[in-house]
């Protein structure tokens, strides 16, 4: 495996006709589990497809695992696994045949592809259903067989495009557990594209945030949270409206929660002392003040909002 960055993008631009899907994207990732975040149409899937060599780069240079996407696509794809967002299956094949076939197409010898197909189907939890036609599978099983197909040739880097799409909560947790095992215990680099921020939060150590085809931010999950405002959950007694006005004068935002409880977002450089100051000024009493964990969703909204 290459010692350099796992993903190295320099000025990558992808166009579909006149539409610019990726606009001068520059980013580097050292590997591990990386989340690809952004609203619909941000360019997440286009980025994955560009890295797989499925769509041509109009400009720029992209290296994955040290290989140039344009110059060595076949060599590179032998080391990549891809689980597409759309429902995708080889027609007329059972789960085992489809996984074995995916391995053969990836360049595996026949016997190894057969053995690995059984192994990864077992890992994906499809041992009972592996001899059934994939067209008879439920949505969750189809997601699992897509994962098995992406894993059969033991890739060094796995691209997962919305892997929990259509799964029930239990199936979603199981899928995320499988992905976590791959990235944390088995040393496979993972790029996880998802619009479900909790999925990314559960699995990934860092995120690439995209918007309108541009790379807006590359940050660790904790860094992204830290980069946003702190927040406190405050239980009040007294005039809530006066407290809100006092907070706003200090540059803090107040969002109502249950009953007399509010959430106060404080900008960087301010803190709990300012919350108490606002309470004093408005003649209200703070009964409880607890720092709240900023969710990745809020952090992301903050990043996307600032760059708007």
């Amino acid at each position, binding site marked *: 495996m290459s010692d350099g960055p796992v993903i190295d993008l320099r000025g990558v631009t992808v166009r579909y006709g006149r539409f610019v899907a990726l606009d001068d994207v520059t980013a580097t990732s050292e590997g591990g589990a990386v989340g690809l975040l952004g609203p619909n149409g941000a360019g997440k899937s286009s980025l994955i497809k560009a890295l797989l060599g*499925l769509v041509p780069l109009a400009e720029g240079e992209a290296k994955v695992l040290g290989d140039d996407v344009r110059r060595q696509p*076949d060599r590179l794809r032998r080391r990549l696994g891809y689980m597409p967002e759309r429902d*995708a*299956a080889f027609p007329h094949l059972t789960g085992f045949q489809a996984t074995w076939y995916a391995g053969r*197409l990836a360049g595996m010898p026949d016997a190894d592809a057969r053995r690995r197909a059984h192994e990864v189907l*077992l890992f994906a939890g499809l041992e009972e259903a592996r001899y059934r036609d994939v067209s008879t599978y439920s949505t969750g099983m189809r997601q699992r067989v897509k994962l098995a197909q992406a*894993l059969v040739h033991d890739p060094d880097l796995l691209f997962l495009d919305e892997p929990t799409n259509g799964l029930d909560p239990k199936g979603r947790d199981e899928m995320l557990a499988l992905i976590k095992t791959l990235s944390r215990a*088995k040393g496979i680099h993972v790029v996880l594209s998802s619009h479900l921020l909790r999925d990314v939060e559960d699995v990934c150590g860092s995120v690439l945030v995209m918007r309108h085809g541009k790379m807006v931010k590359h940050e660790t999950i904790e860094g992204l949270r830290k980069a946003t405002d702190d927040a406190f959950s405050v239980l009040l007694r007294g005039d809530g409206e006066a407290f809100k006005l006092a907070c706003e004068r200090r540059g803090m935002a107040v969002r109502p929660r249950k009953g007399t409880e509010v959430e106060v977002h404080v900008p960087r450089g301010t803190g709990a002392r300012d919350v108490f100051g606002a309470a004093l000024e408005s003649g209200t009493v703070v009964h409880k003040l607890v720092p709240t964990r900023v969710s990745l969703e809020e952090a992301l909204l903050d990043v996307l909002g600032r760059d708007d």
Partner: protein
Amino acid sequence: MVVHDRSYSRWDGDRTGKVPGAWVILDRGVMTGLAVLFKRKIFAVLLTLWAFGPFVAAVLIMYAVFYFRSTPELAEIARNMSDVLRLVTPTPDTLWGYLVNLQLPVVFMLCVLVGSGLIAEDRRTNALELYLSRPLGRFQYVTGKLAVIGFFLSLVTVVPAVIIVLVWMALGATSADELASLSGLIVKAVEAGAVQVLVMSLLILAASSLAKRARNATILFVGFLVVSEIILHGILFEVLGNPSVHLVSILYDVRQCAAWLLDNPAELDPDVPALHCAVVLLGWVVLWSGVILRRVRPVEVVA
């Protein structure tokens, strides 16, 4: 009780891919094609009889005549069978008839049953994304699919034709000159059959690449042949009366080229040069190849 290790294990085998992707597609495609053909047993048996009946009959007649000739008390029967033998003895004329007339309905059936879904089904199930995210280019993918339909069509045209010639070489050839002539006939049969197989394979693959269901690909395939053979060819020839109109008929072009390649002047239409037919077929081949390669993409750009 067997305890399975459910955890993921790494694999450090050889990923260099000794077997080309097109071969893997051919291998799997043939198995899938056979599964489709043998889905209904009675239908499969009837199709097999239809496809190989004339071939088996020809071989049996040749063998029977050879056997009767070598048995003095049955020699009379062999003499009586000489007319039948003439129909199956491999000559440019009989091979031309076998390839482009007798087997044509079987070729159509196989195109529809096996070929129509080759790309269309992959497009319907979004499998193209799975194929092309592997170390496999569009050209390899198309080559693999072409090989699948080519295999089935060759199996009912070129292969039996060559076997018929080989059987006759073993049983009926009486001189070195005749053996040499029959060897040449094998090459000619392969060439003529290859033209037919390539043209029909590319046509059904082009139709398949334009559709998202096998049924729709069949409609396109049949529709194209109806338009080119009946509407354009038939009506235009009636109206204009110009022999050059024959060029719009793909089946006519295939027949002319086959007659030319088999060196069979009896079936060669003197009004239209075979070279013109070959050029027209080449044009179709280039056009259909372009259509297929254009439609086989991992990403569909809608806007």
